């Protein structure tokens, strides 16, 4: 039992690490993640920033573009407009989402599954569709504007027509509220569900009144969720392109300005400048959100007791009435969208027909565009899932290499701050350039071949939705025992085998969730791809925008209905796959 005796001479041959050790391989893969994100996020963004400092002919002009922008009231007014729309939308969507989420999580109302499913429905549609549907309801010949096509004045003798002045801020704000409502509702549902029942028991036992409990326990408990919902609603409505394009009228916002500068006037320098103006408030909101999220980590208690939904009968009835009202409005809205695509000539001939679904004689690409969109969404789902889950795995489950891991994490979260318009614009500049100037030397661009291909469309989608998928994967991976890697390493089993045999099977629900999210979003997105599609590769969502532009509103509605139908179909398929999966994995899932 002598503590430290002279050790035997170490065998030096054992000291060398094999050339392709696990540690090196993982570090190499992480480096790959960092380089790939650098190539598809940092460099294009840098290109966009650079572009805003040059004039149209390629001369460096410093901040002259920005001075020109703010000197021109026609342009700078859009910044104020965008802010106004975003603030109004946030002020409407967050309380509505909160009340709805509260009804779903904290009360004992019936039909929660139905309410939740219906509230999520707006997520499937391009935002263009909200604008189009609003036109059918509140537009010049809209159902409400004309008093149910004059029915009210004819039969009741009263003028029941109601013109809400749709075109402009009103239409945009209504559209964005419908668009952001499900997002706020989702975030707040999660926040409201993760609470500790013991806090409520303690408050009640101390004799606090229900309003006091609400303000001292409920609200503080979800404050980070509320902040997150505020930032998400703000960013989404601040940067959205679809709705303002359709119902904006003369009311310009930043996203439509970029489109007009780039596509309408071919003024790329000013387009880039507006893009940067759009980017900054978004970045600010992003960093504030991250800051709030970091605070939240300290708030979560490991062994919280779940709160069973319980409210008085009166409160339950109130929430049921509220949720039903929202559900009814959503149903009317979705029904109108469907009807708009089926009615022969709104509002003169209300007989139903499928003629708007015959896209052959329209611009936009018709069913070929829909096929392209499905292919693009499918590829984005497959490649995006592999990329996001793989990088989340490397970041989450690698020991050491902390500098690489932190860089990879930061770059994976960065796309969350990038509006689709900014990604699309940055990608034009980056991938369209046939050559790069590096330190005065002209190098042929190694990525130029992607321009105008399906590859670039898929890439833009993967990057656009990267962060949400990355976060989903990270959350799932964090729930795995952190010693799985150590166990397999101690048995000399290579990490990629454990990744395939254990990590992926256990995380399969999250993997399916990510794939489905990517598919649905890629189907509906307009903002990034509207700059990147080419004439031989038309896309369904872009076709909606173009047909609406050309005045073919009913076919545009029909195409939107096709997009929603495909997304719902895919969602059902995924749901069936997930159900089968959970039946199979029930054996090993904890009871």
């Amino acid at each position, binding site marked *: 039992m002598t503590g*430290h005796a002279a050790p035997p001479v*170490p065998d030096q041959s*054992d000291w060398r690490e094999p050339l392709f050790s696990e540690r090196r391989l993982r570090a190499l893969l992480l480096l790959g993640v960092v380089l790939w994100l650098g190539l598809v996020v940092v460099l294009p963004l840098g290109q966009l920033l650079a572009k805003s400092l040059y004039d149209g002919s390629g001369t460096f002009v410093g901040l002259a573009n920005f001075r020109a922008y703010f000197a021109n009231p026609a342009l700078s007014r859009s910044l104020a407009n965008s802010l106004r729309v975003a603030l109004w939308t946030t002020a409407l969507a967050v309380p509505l989402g909160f009340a709805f989420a509260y009804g779903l999580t904290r009360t004992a109302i019936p039909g929660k599954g139905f309410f939740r499913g219906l509230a999520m429905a707006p997520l499937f549609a391009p935002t263009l569709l909200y604008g189009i549907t609003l036109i059918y309801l509140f537009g010049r010949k809209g159902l409400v504007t004309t008093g149910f096509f004059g029915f009210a004045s004819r039969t009741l003798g009263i003028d029941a027509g109601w013109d809400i002045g749709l075109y402009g801020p009103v239409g945009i704000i209504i559209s964005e509220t419908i668009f952001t409502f499900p997002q706020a509702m989702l975030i707040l549902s999660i926040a409201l569900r993760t609470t500790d029942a013991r806090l409520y028991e303690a408050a009640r036992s101390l004799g606090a009144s229900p309003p006091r409990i609400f303000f001292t326990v409920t609200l503080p408990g979800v404050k980070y969720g509320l902040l997150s919902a505020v930032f998400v609603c703000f960013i989404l409505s601040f940067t959205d392109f679809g709705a303002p394009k359709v119902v904006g009228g003369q009311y310009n916002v930043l996203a439509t300005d970029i489109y007009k500068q780039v596509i309408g006037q071919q003024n790329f320098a000013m387009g880039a400048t507006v893009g940067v103006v759009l980017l900054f408030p978004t970045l600010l909101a992003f960093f504030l959100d991250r800051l709030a999220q970091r605070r939240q980590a300290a708030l979560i208690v490991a062994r919280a007791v779940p709160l069973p939904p319980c409210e008085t009968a009166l409160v339950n009835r109130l929430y049921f009435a509220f949720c039903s009202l929202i559900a009814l409005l959503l149903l009317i809205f979705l029904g109108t969208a469907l009807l708009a695509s089926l009615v022969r000539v709104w509002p003169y001939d209300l007989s139903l027909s499928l003629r708007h679904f015959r896209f052959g004689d329209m611009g936009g690409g018709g069913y070929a565009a829909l096929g392209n969109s499905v292919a693009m969404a499918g590829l984005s789902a497959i490649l995006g899932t592999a990329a996001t889950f793989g990088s989340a795995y490397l970041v989450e489950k690698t020991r050491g290499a902390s500098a690489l891991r932190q860089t990879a994490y930061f770059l994976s979260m960065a796309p969350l701050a990038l509006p689709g318009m900014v990604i699309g614009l940055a990608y034009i500049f980056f991938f369209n350039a046939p050559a790069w100037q590096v330190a005065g030397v002209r190098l042929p661009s190694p990525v130029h071949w992607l321009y105008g291909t399906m590859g670039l469309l898929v890439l833009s989608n993967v990057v656009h939705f990267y962060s949400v998928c990355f976060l989903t994967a990270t959350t799932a991976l964090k729930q795995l025992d952190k010693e799985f890697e150590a166990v397999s390493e*101690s048995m000399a089993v290579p990490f990629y085998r454990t990744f395939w045999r254990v990590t992926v099977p256990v995380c399969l629900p999250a993997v399916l969730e990510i794939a489905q999210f990517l598919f649905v979003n890629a189907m509906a997105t307009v903002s990034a791809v509207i700059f990147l599609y080419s004439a031989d590769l038309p896309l369904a969502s872009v076709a909606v925008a173009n047909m609406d532009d050309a005045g073919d509103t009913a076919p545009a509605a029909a195409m939107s209905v096709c997009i929603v139908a495909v997304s719902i179909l895919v969602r059902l398929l995924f749901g069936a796959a997930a159900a089968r999966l959970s039946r199979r994995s029930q054996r*090993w899932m*904890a009871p």
Partner: protein
Amino acid sequence: MDQTPGADGSYLAAQNVVKRYGRFTALNDVGFTAARGEFVSVLGPSGCGKTTLLRIVAGLERQDAGRVVISGRDVSALPVSRRNVGIVFQSYALFPNLTAADNVAYGLRSGPQAGGNIARRVNELLSLVGLTGLQGKYPAQLSGGQQQRVALARAMALSPDILLLDEPLSALDAKVRARLRGEIKALQTRLGVTAIMVTHDQEEALTMADRILVMDHGRVVQHGTPRAIYDQPATPFVAAFIGSMNFLAGAQKRGQGVYQLGRRTLAVWREPQAIETGQTATLGIRPEDVVLGHEELPADERLPARVSGLEFRGATTRVTLALADPRPETAIEADLPAARARELGLETGRLLQILLPPDRVSAYQAA
């Protein structure tokens, strides 16, 4: 220790190991050895560095200085995959989507065995840990104790040189824990594997280990057999951490084995730490070593005390006593077998005589 290959007779040796996390020193010049087939337990409070030490021996963490030698081979620079160690983690880290048999077989596929040999080896291992017939069960379908044994079988599958156990029983309830203590120890003895177990549970260490390493603040404070550690704790920390001990502060050394406490002189035969005559010391005695009685105790050794509290513990009774001297009143605790407690007819407020047997009292340097 005759069959060990190390030059100093040790099979596993960690020497002068240092590990820092930023400014925090988790391990400060730690060393220990284990003979082949020996069961060594690393015991200490949370944050003392014991798990870090285990992970460094395993090769899951890299030490900043020092070496690890297994079976005469310096493995300091080798990753865990090349050290031939089996690890049982605190959480077991069983793969939830694999059956018990597949979990045990997980490392075998890349090993020398193949095909039917794997199945045979898995059955052998599972019967070794008493889980025959549960091959097809998933971890979620097994009890905590069964999961623990699957983890043990998996760790032993590749016939490791060293078995490393990180708080292997902490996730189990008390009854199962007591049973598994014996089972793991028996299995380890039967297989003759050298085992290192990290634990914060003194009872676990005392019952299972051949030798205990007590750690505190990133250092080894004492190592020795369970009996030696319990009987002759080297420092007040060890004494208080393993079992419990009464400390009587303010004693002064008068000469060899003689201490003055208040107005009384006490014989003290144990001095784990060097104390010079005239120095102040703290006297320690375990509650079960305090002798209680009445006038029958020798008059020049007994101390008067008043019963200030009684705690019924089933087989034993803990008596809290207030010593009249030294002032201010000093509290001392004594554990009595139930029968003895009945005999003495203890009740609160009663005056008693106590005796501190000189061979059971230790003197420590005053803090």
